[in-house]
């Protein structure tokens, strides 16, 4: 039978799966009735408000074991990670730098690897984190970077393009609820600057080629 869930801002399939009592996002994402959506969005972590996600009924799983013995059942949960790559101006990775990552209420001390990458396992449904870099050589040292997990929209949507451009240091406008028109020039200049830096035709239009590059450079 199943049901349809309408995606709201900040949701991602793993979080939705947990909400409905599924241990893995795959049960939902790989379901035939989500094939269209899956083809369109590709990444179950970057879905869009308004998307209709089909939630199948939970099926019973039967396992046979001998009575009179102890058996161990391990629930396999899908690992969800927060993975960030930190870079200084002009693609220089912020390598081997100590950072502090506060995920909801817990604080973790991490160090970026040689490529500036850090990753942390997070619980499905996690929404916020705060990152502080402790590398005195970079301008983003000690600055608190609030992180909203799940708020990244697909790259074929303007807010998704804006968010990626912002993350990559091409400030494309604030998310302040004001109409898109107000910061149109700023968004346009950010797209052009990105295109110029990455060898694309500079036309200010975030078309398929630009989107693909944006997704590739940003990481998702």
């Amino acid at each position, binding site marked *: 039978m199943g049901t349809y869930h309408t995606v709201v801002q900040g949701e*991602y399939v*793993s979080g939705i799966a947990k909400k409905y009592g599924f241990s893995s996002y795959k049960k939902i994402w790989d379901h035939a009735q989500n094939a269209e959506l899956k083809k369109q969005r590709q990444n179950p972590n970057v879905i869009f408000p308004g998307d209709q996600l089909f939630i199948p009924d939970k099926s019973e799983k039967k396992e046979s074991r001998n009575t009179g013995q102890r058996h161990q059942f391990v629930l396999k949960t899908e690992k*969800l990670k927060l993975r960030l790559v930190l870079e200084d101006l002009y693609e220089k990775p912020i390598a081997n730098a100590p950072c502090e990552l506060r995920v909801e209420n817990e604080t973790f001390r991490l160090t970026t690897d040689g490529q500036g990458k850090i990753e942390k396992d997070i619980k499905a449904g996690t929404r916020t984190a705060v990152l502080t870099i402790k590398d005195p050589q970079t301008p983003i040292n000690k600055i608190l*970077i609030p*992180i909203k997990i799940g708020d990244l929209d697909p790259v074929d949507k303007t807010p998704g393009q804006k968010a990626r451009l912002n993350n990559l240091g091409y400030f494309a406008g604030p998310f302040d609820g004001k109409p898109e028109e107000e910061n149109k020039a700023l968004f346009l200049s950010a797209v052009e600057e990105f295109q110029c830096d990455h060898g694309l035709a500079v036309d200010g239009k975030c078309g398929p080629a630009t989107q693909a590059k944006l997704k590739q450079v940003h990481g998702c």
Partner: protein
Amino acid sequence: MNTPHNDLTRLVSDGGTAASHPVLQEQGAFVGPATGSEFNTIKAAIIPLACWRLEDVRFEFDSSIVRPESKTELKNLAKLLDRHPPLSKAEKSQPPELGCPLSVFGHADPTGNDDYNKQLSGRRAKAIYALITRRTELWEELFSQPFGNDKWGRRALEMMLDFVSSSEEETSQKNLTTAENGAQPVKANQELVTKHERDAGKRKALFLGYMEKLCGPELRLRKTDFLGHGDDSGGKADFQGCSEFNPVLIFSQEQQKKFDQDKDKTPRNSANASNRRVMVLIFRKGSRVAPAKWPCPRANEGVAGCIKRFWSDGEKRRKNQDKEREFNKTQDTFACRFYDRLSNNSPCERRITGEHWIIRVDKKQGLKLEDTVTLESKAVSYRSKIAVRNAVDIGEFLDFLFVPGPKGHYTITLMVGGTSYFAWRNLHLPGDGQGVEPSKFDYGPNQDHPNPYVVSSGRDPNAPAVTFNLCS
């Protein structure tokens, strides 16, 4: 409506402007979690914090010779650098800090061709860079390699000799005379000028003496105080000329036609003066650029690198259109998108509109540069923090200028030396119709103790200051 407060963020003098950029609200990162190999890249951005502008009047006409009157603007630059210290100052603080690097941009007016203007604007940028770093060898290059009408020669030496040998009073008197009747400044001993013309060593000493007197000991920077750290011998990322690509004023087609037909070019040159400027941008602490990756070509290179960074409609932006256009109003006069993005929020290039809430704090309590005032409303998700170094110093008080947020209850807290103090709770911002009532202030336990901070608030800087007690 008159908004004088905007002027408080800028120091304006006859020959230029010094200002801090409006503080951007904290931007967070929107990311996607990963079930596979996805990742999210967060990259530092190049963000200017402050700007300084030197007008054409401070240079000899069509030349890179810096006039003595620039002393005023250079004093303001020193003040600006107190607020946003470069490495040479910042490393002296306890604990040592990274510095805010500088980069110099020279601009020409649209008269003449792109290449000529690229060189001239580059020479002006070089002259300013050399001045504040005392790199006399760069002035020697400008002197011994004239370009077009930019010939240093005897007149530069005369001007410098005159200034170096005169007293403060004499100089200002002379300047007054010059301004009044357009006469040439009093000529120094011609033999002395010739000596300096022939002897490079003497010249170097003169340049240095002139630079010292112009800047004062306070304003003396090092190569490493600039964005490129002096790593590139051509000054890439430290100073550059933008040719005529970024005018602040573009004539209408009609005006341009009239000017072109007029044999006397004085009115045109005068109307164009605001375009011939030198801008210094001061960037976020710790910013550093590998010169090879900096998009701007060197000051002595051609325009190809500039054109790569034009807006897709850059040529259209450069053309005279049916109306006169000012960057201040239309923001579409710059052809170089890279420079446009850097300077868009610069109070030196345009009047930043938008009213501010002024939170005024008494200086007597010895607030340090890193102490902060925070205006916050959790209910409407507004939070803005401004450090003393970004406040406007108006003598007895420090004015913190906040961009007003939506209607709601606001709190003001001060962080002084690591301790947080509430200044106000349940504050309503202007336009709310609720005003600021003394009865709504939060008073601390020691009401008979003398109040340590005097704070006033509102849009009118002349509003009476309100006294209150801080409670932690």
